[in-house]
């Protein structure tokens, strides 16, 4: 078990390193000159050179790469060209903002999807619940993410006026961590959070449903029924077994889901990492963009590792080698 985790961690480090390296060189071969945002026009050559040196942009690409890796290992992501302050200072609050919609959104989306999927899978074949459940999930899954976001905005913000449609709210008097516990913040959080839930739910629903449908005719379910336990309990056995394939799908799917969350952040102008990543790329702010990609890679790799370990907890047949 420990050897397994160590080996998986080593693999993870390798993957993150590869992503980091690819990103580093990709930004450097992009046609436009990123230093344009850094260097005001009309600078003397010496001043220009001094600035480039200060930002670590002199020397061969190889030297720059080694210097970048060296700093990264020490936890230094460099400084943002655009904000002119350390990348970490820019990203840290954005990460927290993203996690506010991502974690509850994904957990609730998975839980609600799994619960409805179990009910739909357990329902009478060809009945109303089964047909409407599948119809709903298929339709939502087919609708692009930004359309869901815009629909939510149009209905609940513009038309009904129940929720604000923009950003994270005015921090006002409350600053720091306390702001996350204001009514105003929660009010702003509602719509983007619902968007993430709606976006993530259908796939969970359909997977859970097909798992339950497959499991409900298994011999062991027949035996549970024969024991005379309540039907809910029988359905639970089918659901519990259907979670295994769901988990294997769930964590790797987070990678794709991140793309969805980026879109939702943009639609709702939610100041998160995803939205900032897109802005940083358009502004050719490579230190910031690279750091954001680095974080995403770390998150995905950790999610996969977590998937393996959770799977092992849920399925007694799994042996770690």
């Amino acid at each position, binding site marked *: 078990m420990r050897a397994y985790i160590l080996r998986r961690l080593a693999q993870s480090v390798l993957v993150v390193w590869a992503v980091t390296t690819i990103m580093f060189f990709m930004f450097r071969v992009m046609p436009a000159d990123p230093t344009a945002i850094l260097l005001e026009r009309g600078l003397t050559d010496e001043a220009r050179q001094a600035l480039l040196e200060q930002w670590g942009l002199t020397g061969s690409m190889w030297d720059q790469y080694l210097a970048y890796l060296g700093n990264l290992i020490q936890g230094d992501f460099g400084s943002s060209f655009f904000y002119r302050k350390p990348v970490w200072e820019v990203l840290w609050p954005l990460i927290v903002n993203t996690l506010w919609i991502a974690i509850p959104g994904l957990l609730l989306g998975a839980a609600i999807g799994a619960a409805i999927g179990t009910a739909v899978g357990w329902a009478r*074949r060809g009945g109303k619940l089964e047909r409407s459940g599948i119809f709903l999930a298929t339709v939502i899954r087919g609708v692009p993410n930004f359309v869901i976001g815009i629909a939510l905005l149009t209905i609940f913000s513009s038309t009904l006026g129940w929720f604000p449609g923009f950003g994270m709210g005015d921090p006002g008097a409350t600053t720091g961590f306390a702001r996350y516990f204001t009514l105003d913040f929660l009010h702003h959080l509602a719509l983007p959070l619902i968007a993430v839930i709606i976006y993530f739910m259908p796939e969970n629903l359909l997977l859970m449903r097909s798992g339950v449908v497959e499991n409900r005719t298994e*011999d062991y379910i*027949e*035996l*549970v029924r024969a024991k*005379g336990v309540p039907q809910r309990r029988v359905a639970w056995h089918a659901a519990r077994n259907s979670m295994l394939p769901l988990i294997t799908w769930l964590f790797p799917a987070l990678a794709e889901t991140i793309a969805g969350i980026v879109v939702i952040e943009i639609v709702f102008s939610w100041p998160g990492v995803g939205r900032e990543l897109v802005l940083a790329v358009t502004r050719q702010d490579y230190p910031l963009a690279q750091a954001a990609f680095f974080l995403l890679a770390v998150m995905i790799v950790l999610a996969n590792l977590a998937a393996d370990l959770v799977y092992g907890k849920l399925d*007694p047949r799994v042996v770690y080698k």
Partner: protein
Amino acid sequence: MAPARTRSPALARDLARLDERLSAKPAAHLKVNGLSIGYSTLRGRFHAVEDVSFEVRAGTNLGLVGESGCGKSTVVKALMGLLPEFTGISGEALLDGQNILGLSDAQLEPIRWNRISLITQSAMNSLDPVYCIGDQICEAILAHEKVGKAVAWARAEEMFALVGLPAERLYEFPHQFSGGMRQRAVIAMALALNAGMLLADEPTTALDPIMQSQIMSRIRGIHEHMRRSMILVTHDIAVVAETCEAVVVMYAGKVAESGPTADVLERPLHPYTMGLQNAFPRLPVRGQPRQPLISIPGTVPNLLLPPSGCRFASRCPFATDLCRTTAPQLHTVGAQSAACHYTERADEFRAAAARPETWRNMRVGA
């Protein structure tokens, strides 16, 4: 092993009370009348079981025999209420006088496992792979008895001792058990509430021959000890001879022959029973040569289009034109009855059926 573990006096007392309550349950009586079961499939509805009647007297074993596909499991599932949705069921099954056919899952809750329980085949998938065996046994106990988890677990330990498994293995998962151990675990589970009626559907078919006879003698031993009523489904007529007071031979969804085991096996009236006897190695009789094995040529007919006359006609060495056009009624001879037009010629048939060439010379499918 189990008693050696130190149980607190309170736990021991509660367990003793539970044991006493459960062992006070009487053996059940079951009477099945005119049971017919039609499965709906994509190719239409067909009757897997037709007009089957039998009786299991309290405290006795009934053997249900027949080749694969004759409808034995369908009968068992109907009795447990486990047939798929949209299955047509008619007739009645009176468990201690109460008809248990056609009840909803909710109505069956207090009956299942409490009054009628099931020993399934030991296939890997008859136990839930993600729960330990002990939890799966406790689940059944807790569903029907108002006791704590500790008492239920202690009861499960007793059941494990009864089937010869060490109590520690209750903590293990199905995949950690061998086939034989899994089968014993399934038996332990079926006995957990001491239901008055046990249904055992080919409990040893998946096992190797040595394990088969071990499990069967274990079942017989438990039967002696607990005096439950049981329906034992098997295609091995020798097992019936050793275990069951009465036997029902099914062929293609219908009862071919039924009666007291001793009578049916000694003087079978139906050619199918005679054929089955030839197909299984008989217990060697001292001083007589071992019987050669003769299997019945051909297969069970397709029930989507059942033959219009006797269902066994295409494989019966004694079939006549009458057999091929008219379905035989049940004829009763003493305590025995058989669905054959020529029960009065049974002596003659038996003599012929014992000769391998009788079966070999048949033109199958005529």
